[in-house]
């Protein structure tokens, strides 16, 4: 039997709960009457507003301009009028300006024209990707054009496409791989055209055999030089660092980027967004969101305009079947709990979850008994218990010396801690205070 690739150190096995929504085909959410489009939907500096209150906007029109090297443009997801510009707080606690757009429902639906892409060179592709405001859709929302820029003197050995989707509940990427297989592959080939990798690998967790099969069939049809690598089901298999370890066997040193080990990593959702940007010249104005969780009446995978309020998503899924105890934007391991149903979907929202039975997960904390489970499961080789104790005593510099900055808040330590210590919370505080 062939050994299934995986990362070695650490990791946990939470129940994946994907069955709730994995068989639901992607549905188009009807355009809501009002959208809230934040100017900060990406990692880096917020975009600068190009429109004012009262202006009319057209679908796909640029309404926010990137304000730095690591920043991204924002486009209007609908035709309508800007009702106001106001401060909003996003699910990840980022406070920023946002357009409130009243949608004109009588507007003609926009037809996106097909543009051939084979003849484009790297510069042209990067320019289009930047112009269409594409950012990573996996959650970190790193501006894609920056990621695809290969620094001078470096070359790309491997383009690794992330189809792992290791967060429980989420099935958006899974459905996308099943339903938009060819488009994703085209998107990958566009990236390959821009970065000229020696090999291309798509990593998919082994719990999605249908997606692996679909990708392989489409690759054969199109005769693309892409391999699909089934990966062991283990969280956080879909983290950039773990994914590269599993697929090409390289470890990114602390504080370095994939390109430093000759790799570019890209989410399948991003590949699809790149396809739409380059081939259809359609900006990133909508995305697939999994609406799931035990408290959702009808879990679904929805294609949603950016700026849609969570309230509209829930209504389309027939609301909640019982009072949820927690609402989460993203997956349950790394996502953000929020409480306002007016919170908008952004470019990085992979899922909206309504969970109950939270009490058994959020049990009261007890004393650390140094069992060492957090150390055993930490995929980065850190000692969460020791870091936690240092941070509790405000010894941030000592925590930094123990490589606190390597922590990526994957949550394995807190997931496994028998004392229910909020370890990730401590790491977040420690990193913030340590940076100062």
């Amino acid at each position: 039997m062939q050994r299934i690739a995986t990362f070695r150190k650490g990791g946990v096995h939470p129940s994946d709960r994907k069955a709730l929504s994995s068989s639901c085909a992607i549905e188009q959410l009807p355009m809501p009457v009002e959208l809230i489009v934040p100017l900060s939907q990406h990692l880096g500096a917020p975009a600068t507003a190009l429109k004012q209150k009262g202006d009319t906007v057209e679908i796909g029109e640029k309404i926010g301009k990137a304000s730095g090297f690591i920043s991204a443009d924002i486009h209007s997801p609908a035709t309508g009028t800007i009702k106001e510009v106001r401060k909003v707080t996003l699910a990840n606690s980022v406070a920023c300006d946002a357009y409130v757009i009243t949608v004109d429902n009588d507007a003609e639906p926009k037809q996106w024209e097909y543009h051939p892409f084979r003849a484009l060179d790297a510069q042209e592709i990067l320019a289009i990707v930047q112009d269409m405001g594409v950012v990573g859709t996996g959650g970190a929302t790193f501006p894609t054009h920056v990621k695809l820029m290969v620094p001078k003197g470096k070359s790309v050995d491997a383009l690794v496409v992330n189809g792992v989707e290791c967060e429980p509940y989420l099935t958006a990427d899974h459905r996308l791989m099943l339903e938009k297989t060819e488009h994703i592959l085209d998107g990958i080939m566009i990236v390959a055209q821009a970065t000229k990798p020696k090999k291309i690998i798509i990593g998919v967790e082994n719990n999605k055999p249908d997606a692996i099969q679909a990708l392989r069939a489409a690759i054969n049809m199109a005769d693309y030089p892409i391999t699909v690598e089934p990966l062991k089901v283990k969280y956080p298999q879909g983290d950039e660092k773990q994914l590269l370890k599993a697929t090409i066997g390289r470890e990114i040193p602390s504080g370095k980027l994939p390109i430093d080990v000759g790799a570019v990593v890209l989410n399948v959702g991003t590949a699809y967004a790149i396809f739409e940007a380059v081939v259809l010249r359609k900006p990133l104005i909508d995305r697939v969101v999994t609406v799931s969780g035990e408290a959702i009446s009808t879990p679904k995978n929805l294609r949603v305009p950016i700026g849609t309020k969570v309230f509209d998503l829930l209504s389309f899924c027939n609301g909640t079947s019982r009072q949820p105890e927690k609402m989460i934007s993203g997956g349950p391991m790394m996502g953000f709990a929020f409480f306002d149903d007016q919170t908008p979907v952004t470019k990085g929202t992979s899922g909206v979850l309504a969970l109950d039975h939270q009490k058994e997960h959020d049990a009261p904390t007890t004393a650390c008994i140094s069992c060492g489970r957090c150390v055993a499961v930490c995929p980065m080789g850190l000692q969460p218990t020791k870091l936690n104790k240092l941070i509790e005593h405000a010894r941030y510099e000592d925590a930094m010396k123990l490589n606190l900055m390597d922590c990526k808040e994957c949550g394995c330590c807190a997931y496994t801690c028998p004392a229910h210590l909020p370890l990730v919370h401590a790491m977040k505080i420690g990193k913030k205070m340590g940076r100062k």
Partner: protein
Amino acid sequence: MEAPTLVVSSSPHLHAKSNTSAIMWNVSIALAPAALWGVFAFGFRALLVLCVSIATSVFTEWLLNRISKEFTIRDGSAFLTGLLIGMNMPPAVPVFVPILASIFAIAVAKWVFGGLGSNWINPALAGRVFVFFSFTGLMSNYSLPRFVQSVDGISSATMLTTIKMQIGDSAIQQLSSPAILSEIGYPASQFSLKVSQMLGDALSPYTIDAFFGLVGGSIGEISAILLLIGATYLLARKIITWHIPVAFLGTFIVFTWMFGGLRNGMGLFTGDVMLPLFSGGMMLGAFFMATDMVTSPTTAKGMIIFGTGIGFFTFLLRYFGSLPESVSLAIIIMNIFTPTIERYVMPKRFGEVAKKSVKKKEAK
């Protein structure tokens, strides 16, 4: 949406649902077969000692809870400490001894340092060692289990003590440990004599007695096989890992085999391994005492160093020390080293290898 009822907290929003008290109760469950065997072998007296130890531990914890204004009985750690103390007592010991041991364990070894998680020494071991040095005579008075006919009457020393006492005697020079026992007519059960015969004397009857628990000793330490069954349960439930027991027993086996014969006037590499491995507090110590999470290192590498240290000191104390105590003292010695091990032994950091190989490449 009724906003106030929603919980907002830091990720992750899922938990493995493990908790500290489940760990403690599971360890107690794993100890149960060996403890029950002790009661069966030594009778009502053993049951009394176990109950008194547990009750005193829990009651002491409850009293101290009054002072520290918390409620920690339910986490099961006081119960476990009491059970371990009881299992470490000779069956015939007067009840005030386990009472004192339990109070010392909970109040001095654990509570004074800040309660569960903050103690540097395994509380049960601290209690045992405290009473051992205070009442050495009472703590060394072992009775034989009901299955073995004693030669000289009511009480008898354990195998290890007997061997140790005979070593100075020049009459039994150059005999292996089981041979010494047999030479002086130490009692063995009918069962083990039969099994030994069946195996063609490959294993001495004393080893077989020790493995099945047909020997004199502390209430809970005599049956190696039942302790191993409990240990298997803990390993399967992933409550303990293999690192400490394997490093401990492995080191002990190597040293015993290499140098164990010297004491008996024999050469190198002649030490008998099987009898020492299954007798005394080896199994109880390796799987249930050394693996105490609070007082052992958290990293895999640290656990191996810790276990190796215990194995080495156990060998040293058993073969060249003057006291019958060896496992308990060896574990306590390594408890002292735990913070230092924790300080200097780090897990391998992700990306470290890559960095080194990059440097190598650059050097080329």
